[in-house]
């Protein structure tokens, strides 16, 4: 096996939202760091496609349907996988996985420098102690080993770098971030906001989404220019991603070695030192087998990929997966349940419109099980929301034609308002992944079989999202209110998490309070795998804060010779 000559102090696996943070933190703290990314390099000037106009797209935004059906039948189900940016999602043909026939799971992945941080939704919310203490209070799964106070300074720290725009509300269940100025609500959102205030007081509020998109220049990155489709890239670096922010910062230290096209096969465990000593890599392009060594490992490949690497790193001692003495590796898979909501028409405001494409939504923070216990279910959900005017598409099912039709259909149509929820998913040992020995990816690496289904509590939450949304629209004076409950399978919120959970007890958890393996001291996992419960808010901000905190701890241990 060829050995590399360069000495590294740390190896980070993955360059997505957490790998980028690990790279930045470790290099800033003086560690020569190798970042291994399975996919190709990304050059913003060449690879970002946000300004490609529809008329330059062969299918005018309708996407290359047949090619997607052939190569990306699962990835193309994701709203963000569009005509110009399907290359930011893996080819399903190269990345097979299996599920129980009756339990579909949509695994949406991106393999390139930056990972899914290029296409992420950017909504950024802090957790609160309502979330961190939920398992303990309800006797579900295990308690988190940390509380809000442990993470709050690290939220401050990462937010200061990222730049998150939003509005302070002072809600205990959704702590405020260090915000840049908020984006504006539009006229109808403002009207709904005041109707909700009238009907629900401070219990159910509407605020602008808290988003990792800059509303003013911040740390060398420009303010948003409101073109709209962030998931295609951003030449002004205005939204946060590894490519736009953390990796350039790591690069500046001179201590970063970024190696794209490096598919990680497994970790090498030395049973004498009880440390991970190296990583087996397959060159994504040449298929050459490589090894890299370092005294410290951060596994940030995404929840399921990191878990898969640990399973594929099994040794005689860790026969059921590396760092899996607890037996919890791969278990407790969670994803937010979404798809409950309602839509309605808001009369009036025909002489008002908005200008520009706001890459953000309005948001109603969680209100269930905050002050009063709900009789029907545990936990809660947040409602993503927004108002917009119908466009020319309303003319398709219309029978009109001719000059007058052309004129009227080009004018903005009625205002519509939609609420759509994201709900907490309870940790459940029987939702799990394992290696499917019959399936390998295009590089010969065994893939996963995913066993995951939502339970009654999640379905009850989704039903309630739809009822509460309809109730709120009614309070706001909406007409033609249409409640809905979509039947999306787990995985589709792309918030999969929990398969290497944190906890105090090595017998029941994979990681300790610092994202460090209970079993192997120089192994840290800081992606969504570490989550002990799911909360109901978009999780990336929490992963980033946990990563920065874990890096700080790891370097302290290293300096004290305790790794």
């Amino acid at each position, binding site marked *: 096996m060829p050995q590399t000559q360069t000495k590294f102090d740390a190896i980070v696996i993955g360059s997505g939202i957490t790998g980028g943070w690990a790279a930045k933190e470790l290099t800033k703290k003086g560690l020569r760091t190798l970042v291994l990314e399975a996919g190709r390099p990304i050059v913003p000037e060449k690879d970002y496609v946000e300004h490609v106009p529809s008329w330059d797209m062969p299918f005018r935004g309708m996407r290359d349907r047949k090619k997607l059906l052939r190569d990306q039948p699962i990835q193309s189900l994701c709203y963000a996988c569009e005509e110009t940016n399907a290359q930011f999602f893996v080819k399903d043909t190269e990345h097979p996985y299996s599920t129980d026939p009756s339990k579909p799971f949509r695994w949406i992945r991106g393999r390139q420098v930056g990972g899914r941080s290029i296409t992420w939704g950017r909504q950024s919310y802090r957790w609160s102690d309502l979330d961190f203490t939920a398992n303990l209070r309800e006797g579900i799964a295990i308690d988190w080993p940390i509380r809000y106070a442990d993470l709050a300074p690290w939220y401050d720290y990462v937010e200061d770098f990222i730049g998150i725009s939003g509005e302070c509300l002072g809600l205990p269940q959704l702590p405020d971030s260090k915000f840049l100025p908020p984006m504006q609500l539009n006229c109808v959102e403002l009207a709904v906001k005041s109707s909700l205030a009238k009907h629900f007081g401070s219990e159910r509020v509407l605020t602008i989404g808290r988003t990792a998109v800059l509303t003013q220049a911040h740390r060398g990155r420009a303010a948003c220019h*409101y073109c709209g489709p962030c998931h295609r890239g951003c030449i002004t670096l205005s939204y946060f991603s590894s490519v736009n922010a953390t990796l350039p910062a790591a690069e500046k230290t001179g201590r970063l070695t970024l190696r794209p096209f490096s598919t990680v096969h497994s970790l090498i465990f030395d049973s004498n030192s009880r440390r991970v000593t190296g990583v087996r890599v397959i060159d994504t392009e040449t298929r050459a087998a490589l090894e890299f060594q370092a005294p410290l490992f951060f596994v940030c490949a995404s929840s399921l990929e990191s878990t898969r690497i640990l399973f594929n790193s099994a040794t005689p001692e860790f026969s059921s997966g590396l760092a899996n003495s607890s037996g919890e590796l791969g278990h407790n898979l969670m994803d937010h349940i979404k798809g409950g909501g309602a839509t309605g028409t808001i009369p009036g405001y025909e002489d008002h419109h908005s200008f520009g494409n706001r890459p953000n939504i309005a948001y109603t923070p969680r209100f269930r099980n905050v002050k009063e216990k709900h009789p029907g279910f545990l936990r809660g959900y947040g409602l993503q929301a927004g108002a917009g005017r119908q466009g020319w598409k309303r003319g398709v099912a219309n029978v009109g034609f001719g000059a007058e039709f052309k004129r009227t259909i080009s004018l903005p149509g009625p205002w519509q308002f939609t609420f759509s929820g994201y709900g907490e998913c309870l940790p459940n040992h029987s939702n799990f992944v394992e290696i499917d020995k019959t399936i390998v990816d295009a590089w010969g690496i065994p893939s996963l079989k995913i066993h995951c289904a939502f339970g009654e509590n999640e379905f009850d939450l989704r039903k309630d999202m739809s009822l509460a949304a309809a109730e709120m629209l009614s309070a706001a004076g909406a007409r033609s209110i249409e409640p*809905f409950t979509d039947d999306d399978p787990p995985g589709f919120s792309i918030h999969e998490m929990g398969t290497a959970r944190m906890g105090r007890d090595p017998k029941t958890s994979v990681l300790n309070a610092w994202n460090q393996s209970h079993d192997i001291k120089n192994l840290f996992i800081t992606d969504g795998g570490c989550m002990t419960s799911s909360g109901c808010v978009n999780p990336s901000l929490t992963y980033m804060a946990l990563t920065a905190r874990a890096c700080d701890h790891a370097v302290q241990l290293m300096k004290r010779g305790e790794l």
Partner: protein
Amino acid sequence: MDRRQLVKLLALSTALPTMPAELLAAFREIHAGLPTDYALRALSPHQDATVATLADLIIPATDTPGAKDVRVNRFIDRIVADWYSDEDRARFLKGVADVDARTQDLFQKNFVDASSAQQSEILRALGEEMAQVTAALAAAPRGYRGSPPLPKDNFYFMFRQLTLTGYFTSEAGFTLQLHEEIVPGRFDGCVPDASSIQRKGA
């Protein structure tokens, strides 16, 4: 003046809706400069002419270009050839043939040769049938989604979908008709400016 400059000028023009005839002529000239060697892939020349005529009736040239000016028929040809399933392609082509059959029945000529009043009559008939299908779908029991399903298998619905998509995603449709911009540069949530709305689609 090159194409980019012209489109920019037109987009910024406050003289709309009274676009100078000169500019409009220049615009059409530029569009005439689109590749002329486009080879039809799914449609025969006659089907193509029928499609172009139908599309231009739905979105005619006014003080902005119409469907034919922006070559919606080429977009439709591409979709029928490369995007539609075999089933949808057959359904679409049958629908195009049916347009001629209806015109023959009523006026003893092909659609492209009919007078514009006769063509409009055919379009109204197609629209009535589409509306009946839509109403039947709306009356049928609904699934988990509240909104009624769309008449996706109806030829005229398919045709309108492609025509409107092809037109409003064209450079002229997006820029001159909708007054949209790729890079707006700012976001104003609430613009109480009736005139700027009236400008849209004027």
